[in-house]
């Protein structure tokens, strides 16, 4: 790897974090809340991207893990009286186990068959959440209202700003860990399984283990995102996590850019803001507008926004005669 480029990348990331920290002081609280949701979605998208982009397994049911994470946080706060910050790792752990267990049998399924199996999970989740036997915890169709955490007094910032920074901290941590994981041995194994499963196995990669671990880690990320999203929204109900959420997440991954870490942010912006813009344009057919935008994106940026940005950067540096960044 070129150390010159590595240093430049590091400076770029540091600059981005500084910008992200300054942002909530320049925009209204409601915008801060929207950006908090973008951050939460970006974690979920990174998780799904590990599975779909890097490992080549398509999931149409990640909304279910988002829901499990959200409900875990809500139930722990509402019934067990846990502080909000303590619920996030637990939500992640619960989702890791759920994802790993779901990943085991799902291993036998390839491509579209796996997509259908996960689709079933996504479709079933809202109804499972309404089921009588767990109604005492989940609140049934009524859902659970969560109390919004206050910022510590010494910070002097609003609740929304505090939640933004809390979520941002998780983003930095999880993206750092994800980046480490994906560029290392396991990341290479994941990509190898996606591209040449038989060759990967011949090279000594434990395909089964890596695939179910990927499923587990992916679910963990999505679960943490669900918990953060639930705390920001202050409410969970089965209707919040219908199958459309799963499809939206997959859309975000593809729009952002498959197998790209920075793509998670672009995808998150897309799923957060494009529906609002579509609604502004037409009340009669917001989804038609959404569809047109989606098709336009796919035409103009077939490798996602991240791929497009990479392409533009490559062109510019070639013109300048600088070495082409990877």
């Amino acid at each position: 790897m070129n150390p010159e480029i590595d240093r430049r990348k590091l400076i770029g990331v540091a600059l981005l974090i500084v910008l992200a920290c300054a942002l909530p002081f320049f925009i209204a609280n409601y915008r801060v809340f929207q950006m908090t949701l973008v951050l939460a979605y970006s974690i979920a998208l990174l998780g799904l991207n590990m599975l779909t982009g890097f490992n080549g397994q398509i999931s149409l049911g990640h909304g279910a893990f988002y829901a499990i994470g959200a409900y875990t946080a809500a139930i722990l706060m509402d019934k067990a009286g846990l502080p909000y910050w303590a619920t996030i790792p637990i939500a992640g752990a619960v989702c890791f186990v759920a994802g790993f267990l779901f990943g085991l049998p799902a291993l036998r399924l390839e491509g579209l068959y796996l997509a259908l199996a996960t689709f079933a999970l996504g479709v079933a989740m809202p109804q499972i959440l309404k089921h009588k036997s767990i109604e005492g915890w989940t609140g049934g169709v009524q859902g659970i209202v969560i109390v919004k955490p206050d910022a510590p007094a010494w910070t002097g910032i609003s609740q929304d700003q505090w939640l933004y920074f809390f979520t941002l901290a998780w983003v930095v941590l999880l993206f750092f860990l994800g980046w480490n994981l994906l560029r290392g041995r396991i990341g290479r194994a994941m990509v190898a399984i996606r591209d040449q499963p038989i060759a990967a196995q011949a090279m000594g990669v434990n395909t089964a283990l890596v695939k179910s671990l990927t499923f587990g880690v992916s679910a963990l990320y999505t679960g943490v995102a669900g918990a953060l999203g639930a705390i920001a929204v202050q409410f969970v109900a089965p209707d919040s996590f219908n199958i459309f959420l799963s499809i939206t997440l997959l859309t975000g991954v593809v729009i952002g850019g498959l197998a790209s870490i920075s793509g998670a942010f672009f995808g998150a912006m897309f799923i957060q803001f494009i529906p609002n813009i579509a609604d502004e344009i037409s009340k009669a057919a917001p989804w038609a507008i959404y569809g047109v935008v989606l098709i336009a994106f796919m035409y103009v940026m077939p490798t996602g926004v991240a791929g497009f940005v990479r392409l533009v950067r490559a062109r510019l540096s070639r013109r300048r005669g600088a070495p082409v960044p990877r």
Partner: protein
Amino acid sequence: MSKDLLRVSRRTALGAAVALAFTGNAFAQAAKYGPGASATEIKLGQTMPYSGPASAYGTIGKVEQAYFKMINDNGGINGRKVNLISLDDGYSPPKAVEQVRRLVEQDEVLALFQTLGTPSNSAIHKYVNAKKVPHLLLATGATKWGDPKEFPWTMGFNLSYQSEGQIYAKWLLKNKPNAKIGVLYQNDDYGKDVLKGVRDGLGAAAAKMIVKEVTYEVTDPTVDSQILTLQGSGADTFIDITTPKFGAQAVRKAFDSGWKPLHIINNVSSSIGSVLVPAGVEKAVGAMTINYYKDPNDPQWKDDPAMLEWRAFMGRYYREGDPKDPSNLYGYLAAQVMTQILKQCGNDLSRENVMRQAANLKNFKLPLLLPGMTANTGPNDFFMFEQAQLARFTGTQWQLFGDLISTDSR
């Protein structure tokens, strides 16, 4: 006496309007404005499911925007134009939270109006009350929207599910006191809400009269076995608290099994087109339900002046809307009530006064309600409608009968 009250409030309003016209600026300075209100504009906000699973209800938001367009074309309310900002929430609670926060914090609306759906409204319930934003005329039937002590900024619009249950109970107590009642209800907050109304209405007689209660889940394929259980219990009266798909199944099975009880079917499933026709209209003859506003498909209102006025409005301001869809009439009614509340506010357009006036509707007449019905609220009574009339199915239409029945005042 009630008539006198109405006259007084009208005279006061007229007086205020005249005073405004004469004193112009001087009076405008005395006017009070909360966020979203000014001398020229009143900003209202709402979320609607323009996309998503409940998008059929999106027409309510559109008809309401059309109504305020008409109001504005005719000079507005006390000289101010109404600007209703209507946003899509896709029937998703998190989206509703986001959009309502936008309406309150960015657009700074004076009040929320007709936000639709129980889940979406549950999600914003605490927030709007903490922010002290009037959360008015919610488009849902849940009874929890009428709780002025805990949630003084939230007021529903629909006849509540509990009121509906009470009305059935009251009619049975009076007309069929020896009824043996079997109840089928959907196992969620809506089903339990209606059932609670039935039980409360029957009072001490509930234990004796209700011989069997059975439930179904929205995920069940049919309710056939539940109907047979009710038949086996010896019940002769069937209170059917179901949503349309299950309502149609219940109508058919209760007839085909040879049970043929007195079938009381709740308003949610009373649509002729989507419930009774699929079930077979001949199997529904004699079934009962309640109504509280006029049905645009009912031939008896064909030449009703209020109905003609509504149709003219539809033709002029909302031509793409379906004049057969009762949702368009419902939205028109809600917009009329909102207009009345804003009229009563006069020149004090603070959020507190909007809430005060919303809780101060005295025998407000709406010609599209059933004859004799009015809207009434008070500081301790956040239920707009507490009356309804029973209707019997003739095989082609719902025929109203008997008097208006009121629920117990709370």
